[in-house]
C-alpha cells in the first residue's frame, strides 16, 4: 500500500484533473492553432494526460480508500 502522503497526493491529482479539463483561464480566448481553437487543443492534451495519470494510479495506488479500510487486516498488508 502507498504512503498516507501519496494518498492525499492522488486526491489532489484527481481534483486537478477535474478542475482543468475545461481551461477556465482561457475564457473568451479565440486564438487558433492548426485550424482549431487553442482551448480545444488544451482539452485534447488534458484528456491524454488524464489517461496517463489514471494509468499510473491503477498501477501504483489502486485500492486506496477501498481495500485499505479493513480494520481487521490493517498493518499486515504488504
Amino acid at each position: 500500500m502507498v504512503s498516507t502522503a501519496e494518498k492525499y497526493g492522488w486526491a489532489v491529482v484527481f481534483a486537478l484533473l477535474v478542475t482543468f479539463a475545461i481551461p477556465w483561464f482561457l475564457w473568451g480566448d479565440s486564438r487558433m492553432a492548426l485550424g482549431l481553437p487553442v482551448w480545444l487543443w488544451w482539452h485534447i492534451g488534458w484528456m491524454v494526460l488524464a489517461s496517463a495519470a489514471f494509468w499510473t494510479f491503477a498501477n501504483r495506488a489502486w485500492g486506496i480508500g477501498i481495500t485499505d479500510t479493513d480494520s481487521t487486516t490493517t498493518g499486515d498488508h504488504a
Partner: protein
Amino acid sequence: MTATLQLGIIVAYLFIALGVGLLAYRLTERTAEDFYLASRTFGTVVLLFTVFATLLSAFTFFGGPDTSYAFGPEWILVMGLMDGIIFAVLWYVVGYKQWLLGQRHGYVTLGEMLGDRFGSTGVRALVAAVSLFWLFPYVMLQQIGAGGALSALTGGTFPFWAGATLITAFMILYVVLAGMRGIAWTDTLQGAFMLVMVWAAMLWVLLAVDGGITTINAGLEATRPEFFALGSDFYTPANMLTFAISIAFGVAMFPQVNQRFFAASSETVLKRSFALWPVLVLLLFVPAFLLGTWATGLGLQADIGAGESILPVILGEYTPAWFAALVIAGAIAAMMSSSDSMLLSGSSYFTRDIYRPVLDASLSERREDLLARVGVAVFAVAALAASIWAEAGAFGSGSVGSILVTIGDLAFGGFAQLALPVIVALYWRRTTRSGIVAGILVPQVVYVGFNFLPEVPLGPVTLFTDTYFGWGVSIYCMILGLLVTVVVSAVTARSPDEDTDLYFEGLSAD
C-alpha cells in the same frame, strides 16, 4: 435509393445482431446471473465498448453534433469533463467498490447491494422503484425516436406505430435470446464500427471541402465568429458544469451502466478500462462534434427545433450516398442497442428487487431465469404501448403522454439524485437505514416538484423554476440529498438488522 439502402443496412444489422444473439444463447447457462451479467466474465475491450455503446451511441450522432452546430464546439469540453474525467473517477469510487462487493456477495443489482447492507427489503425495492420510474419513460423515448426515424426514412410507408412495433418485437426476441453476453458482443462490434465511421466521416468532409479547414474556418469567421472564443451565453461556466456533473453522476446510476460494474471479469479489466476511458471519449466526441460546428462554417442548415439533425445534412452534402446511409443506419441501430440494454436491466430490477423479495421469495434459479425473460417482454410491450399512445396525439400540454416524455428527458438528473446517498453508504459506516431512505426520497420529491409544479413567484424569488443563479436545480437537489443522508444518519440510531461492516471488511483478502 438512399432510403432503400439505409433500410437494407438496418435490416442487415438486425440479422447480424440476431446471429450474435444465437451464438451467445448457445453459450448461456440458464441462470439469472448469466442472463443479466454474463456470469461476470467481461474483458477490457468488451466492458469498455458495451458501456460506451449502451450509453452514448444515439447522442453522439444526433444530439451532440446538433448542439455543436447551434452553439459552438464547447460541447466537446462538457462531454470530455463529464464522461472522460468525472465518470472515470466514479468508475473507481462507485464501480470498483461495487465490483468487489459483487464478487464477494453475488450482487446483481444496486438495490440488492444496498438492501443487504441495510437489512431491508424496503430499501431494495425503493432503489428499484425509483430507477424504474426514470427508466421506463427513457425506454419510451428510444422507441419514439426509432419509430419516427424508420417512418421518416420510408417516407411514411412504415407508419410510426408499425416501425416502433417492429423494432420492439425484434428487441424482445433478441434480448430474451441473447441476454447480457449477446448484447455486449454486438455493442463491441458496434462501438468499433462507430469509432471508425466517425473518423472516416471527418476526414472525408475535410478532403471534400475545397480548401479544407481554411475554408471552413473562414466561413465560421464570417457567420459565427463567436464560436472560436471559449464560452458564450449558452456555454456559461454554471451551465457547462451543471450538465457535466449531473449527467456524469446520473450515468453512474443508470441501471444498464451501473449493472455493468458487476460484470467485469477481473480487477485488471477494471484498471485498464478506467485508464483508457478519457482517450476513448476523446476519440469519439472530437470528430463527431467538430462535424456539427463545421456544418455551420459551411453554411449548411438544419431545423434542430423541428427535430432535424445536422449530421445527415453534412454527410449528404460531402460524402457518397452509401457512406451517409451507413452512418445514419448505424446511428439508428445504436439507438436500438441502447434500448436493449435498458430492457435487460429494467427487467432485472423488477424481478430481483421487487417481484422476488416482495411477492415470491421461494423462486428457484431456473424459474427466475424464465421470469427474467418474460419480464423483458412485459417491460418492452408496456413501454411500446405507452409510446404509441403518447405519439397518437396525447402530446397536448399537461397530458399523461407528454408528462412521460418529460420524465424521460429529465432521467439523467433523476438518476443523479441516487448517486451521493449511495456513495455515502459505500464509504461511511455510520449511514443508517433511515438516513439512506430519506436521502433517496427527499431529493427525488424535490427534483420532480421543481420540474413539474407550476412556477410560483414568492416575493423576490420564484419557486419551482429549473435554474437558480445559472445552476440547474438537479445540482441543488444532489447537495440536498447528500445533506439529508448525512444529517438523518447522524440523528438516527442504526437498526439491529443492519450490517455496518459489510462494505468495509474482507475487501482486501485476495
